């Protein structure tokens, strides 16, 4: 079946898996790549050129910790030269005022700094990095001094959900334009650690009420984006706006993925920018076309009136919870697995994100 594939709009560039933090919900895969697998500067620059030709208007420079790449300024400059909007997604514990200045000079458009907690002790406990909170606050100030707009990213889970109001105060105090209250999504590391991380129903409902009210109160002052905890929803999220619809991810070693967790689906194989032109991968690769559009959908998604709204939800979550990546996302009430969704394994300590550890048992 052939279908027209439109231009891609957004790209997540995972420049490295190296990171000074060890959060137990990291969105990187459980099997992390070492530095010797990372793409060379020239390959990233060429990939960004191809991405701009393909219609990409925004690139999110992420990791791991993207600022550990010493060539980050060059990569930003390459994107800026093509008019691509650049967004740096950083933990901000290893930055200096000078480095931020150089990135701004290279043409960086926006900085997103993650805060693991709104309180210093929480930030330190979740990321396992001493004095992280103060370093982040300092970096946020340097970014604002350099004229860069700031988003505070707050990944929310059981251990910090009560700090949501304090995250709002923090964002206002730091002069952020935007606050992302991003409830952790449970794949990869977060799925492994779900019994320690998944918040309870009441706490989630309190959070939703607070965010809705505060968002209204702060209209025109602070943009609050809210990523909901889909385990407590009746319908799935429109994951990636549809598989292969307008965005893709490039891993540190050059694999091109329809979403950052796609490697958790073992039946998919992914092409690399080191082997094929990006345009061919985007338009023709099997991994992108497998769940593109609607033809792949089984029932109940196929005839569902919401299929244009949520595209059947998340393929990675469907696979993790049902063993079938084409199944209806179990966060949907129409999934036969919906009832089992919140049944958690016995609580155990958080397994820390580490590079190079032998296979971790789920």
């Amino acid at each position, binding site marked *: 079946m052939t279908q027209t594939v439109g*231009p891609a*709009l*957004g790209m997540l560039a995972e420049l490295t898996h190296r990171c000074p933090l060890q959060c137990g919900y990291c969105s990187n895969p459980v099997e992390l790549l070492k530095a010797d697998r990372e793409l060379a500067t020239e390959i990233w620059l060429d990939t960004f050129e191809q991405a701009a030709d393909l*219609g990409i*208007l*925004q690139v*999110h420079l992420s990791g791991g910790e993207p600022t550990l790449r010493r060539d980050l300024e060059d990569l930003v400059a390459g994107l800026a030269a093509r*008019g691509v*909007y650049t*967004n740096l997604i950083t933990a901000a514990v290893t930055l200096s005022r000078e480095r931020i200045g150089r990135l701004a000079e290279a043409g960086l*458009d*926006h900085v*997103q700094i993650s805060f693991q907690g709104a309180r210093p002790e929480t930030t330190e406990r979740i990321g396992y990095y001493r004095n992280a909170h103060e370093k982040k606050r300092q970096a946020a100030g340097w970014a604002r001094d350099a*004229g*860069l*707009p700031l*988003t505070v990213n707050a990944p929310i889970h059981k251990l910090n959900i009560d700090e949501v109001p304090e995250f709002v105060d923090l964002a*206002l*105090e730091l*002069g952020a*334009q*935007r606050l992302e209250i991003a409830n952790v999504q449970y794949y990869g590391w977060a799925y492994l650690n779900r019994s320690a991380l998944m918040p309870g129903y009441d706490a989630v409902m309190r959070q939703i009420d607070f965010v809705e009210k505060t968002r209204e109160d702060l*209209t*025109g*002052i*602070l*943009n609050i*984006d809210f990523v909901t905890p889909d385990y407590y929803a009746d319908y799935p999220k429109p994951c990636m706006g549809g598989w292969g619809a307008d965005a893709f991810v490039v891993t540190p070693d050059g694999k091109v993925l329809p979403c950052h967790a796609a490697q958790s689906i073992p039946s998919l194989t992914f092409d690399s920018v080191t082997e094929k032109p990006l345009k061919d991968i985007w338009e023709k690769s099997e991994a992108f076309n497998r769940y593109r559009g609607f033809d792949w959908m089984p029932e109940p998604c196929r005839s569902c009136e919401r299929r244009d709204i949520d595209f059947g939800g998340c393929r990675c979550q469907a696979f993790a919870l049902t063993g079938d990546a084409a199944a209806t996302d179990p966060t949907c009430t129409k999934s036969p697995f919906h009832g089992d969704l919140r049944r958690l394994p016995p609580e155990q300590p958080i397994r820390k994100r580490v590079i190079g550890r032998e296979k971790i048992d789920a």
Partner: protein
Amino acid sequence: MPARTRHVVTNLSQPGFPAYVRLQFDELRGRWALLAPEKVYWPDDISVAILNRCTGEATVSEIILDLAEEFEAPVEEIGPDVRDFLQEWSDRLVIRCGGRKA
């Protein structure tokens, strides 16, 4: 840091783009794109006509007069729509009014 407040758009407001927002023509798609943190907006022709007049210097009154002339429409008819539009985009923090810096 001064406490931030919501800007209420009046005829004397001077709407402009903060440094982190860019309105640019996308050759590939043949339409205007407004690039903002983590968002891309696709304004229609009328919206582009308004946004392109947001220089940070022209007042809302001047923008309305200019649009009325170009589109041969009565000021009293388009005025409220333009003000509503600018308030909405100001609330999204995509345009900023007045001469204050980010």
